[in-house]
């Protein structure tokens, strides 16, 4: 059971949230300039890393606001949550042992 820190409401149980996939996927600046390959990238290709991932969540049965999070898809640790229009905090510098 994950505890998710809504930037507006504070920590809440994951069942209050709706998942929105990868964050910061911008609508193409000049859609007419895109070829089929580029449209496919925009519509169907998303990052799928094992590790640090910037993603969107909605606090759907709370304040209903969308926000962003940095989560580790391997450990499920939330490294940060931040506003929908903010940029992601930089990754913490790796320690000597590295993070597991």
């Amino acid at each position: 059971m994950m505890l998710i820190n809504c930037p507006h409401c504070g920590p809440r149980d994951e069942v209050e949230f709706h998942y929105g996939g990868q964050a910061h996927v911008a609508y193409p600046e000049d859609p007419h300039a895109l070829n089929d390959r580029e449209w496919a990238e925009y519509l169907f290709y998303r990052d799928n890393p094992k590790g640090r991932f910037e993603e969107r969540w909605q606090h759907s049965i709370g304040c209903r606001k969308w926000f962003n999070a940095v989560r580790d898809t391997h450990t499920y640790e939330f490294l940060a949550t931040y506003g929908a229009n903010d940029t992601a905090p930089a990754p913490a510098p790796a320690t000597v042992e590295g993070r597991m």
Partner: protein
Amino acid sequence: MANHLPEHPDFLWRNPDPKSSYDVVIVGGGGHGLATAYYLAKHHGITNVAVLERGWLAGGNMARNTTIIRSNYLWDESAAIYEKSLKLWEGLPEELEYDFLFSQRGVMNLAHTLQDVREAQRRVNANRLNGVDAEFLDPQQVKEVCPIINITDNIRYPVMGATYQPRAGIAKHDHVAWALARKADEMGVDLIQNCEVTGFYKDGDRVIGVETTRGRINAGKVGLAAAGHSSVLAELAGFRLPIQSHPLQALVSELFEPVHPTVVMSNHVHVYVSQAHKGELVMGAGIDSYNGYGQRGSFHVIEEQMAAAVELFPIFARAHLLRTWGGIVDTTLDASPIISNTPIDDLYVNCGWGTGGFKGTPASGFTFAHTIATGEAHPLNAPFSLDRFETGHLIDEHGAAAVAH
């Protein structure tokens, strides 16, 4: 009494050290990788093959699934490949000389709303046009096939009918893997465990080998069959896949006398149940919504699944849960698999089977072996190539995939 499991032979496969070079290297020793190696050897005479598995053989999703086999998919492309798979299943125990308890006890997909009923009837008609056995059952007929099911109409989502595929069923998944492994090994394929692929060697745009935790292995061709880890491997090779990895979990009860004679799936209230040969009730539910590589699932998914199970099967209320586990499934946007060449020459990919690839194991191996051996798609997997995401010829099977993802 519960059925006895087949005795398996003492000797299943050798445990060779990797050679420095192979004609074909398959990454991933799950069912799909093993079936691919088997058909490469059997149909194409390519036996200088290694299957590299980072853990133990078939310990990934192959060991974790609920083993449901059916071919009642909606679209022509899917019906063709899944029905080919079912036909292969029907001959495999004899062909592999190994009884893996393939049991054609039928599968019902329940309908709980008027829209479900319409979708189900449409699918039954589509199935029949494609030569796939299918019937639509009313609630009374549902009860005849599976007497323990609750068809009263005073529950939140009463049973309003079901599709029924009599030839569908279950098989003993571990034994399937061992059966394929043994035959592939007999034909000369090297099955190498504890060997993780960590990188790729390329000559320009062509793959020429893999870097592994057991050293460099050169390869004429490389086939990826790594299920939930396919995008991790693609990234190492330098291309992207339209895949998202999610945890999917299942659970089993303690052992019971036979009470559940068929397989019941419900997409709407989201539970699927069969009774294993030994007697456990085997149950699954939906995926966790978020991307994840942890081989466990969320507790609230189990809660919802149990609530649905107990409403549909009131006699389950007193069953004890024995254990739960999870796998990592590789989902695509159209809920259909990818069996394809890639932007890298001589590198092929087989992934995207999501929550439903166990049933596809034989056809997956059959078509992937063809694609690797000839460099061309087989007619059965041509529609499942990567370029469908560019051409827009998606095969949208969400409705028939039966586990929402």
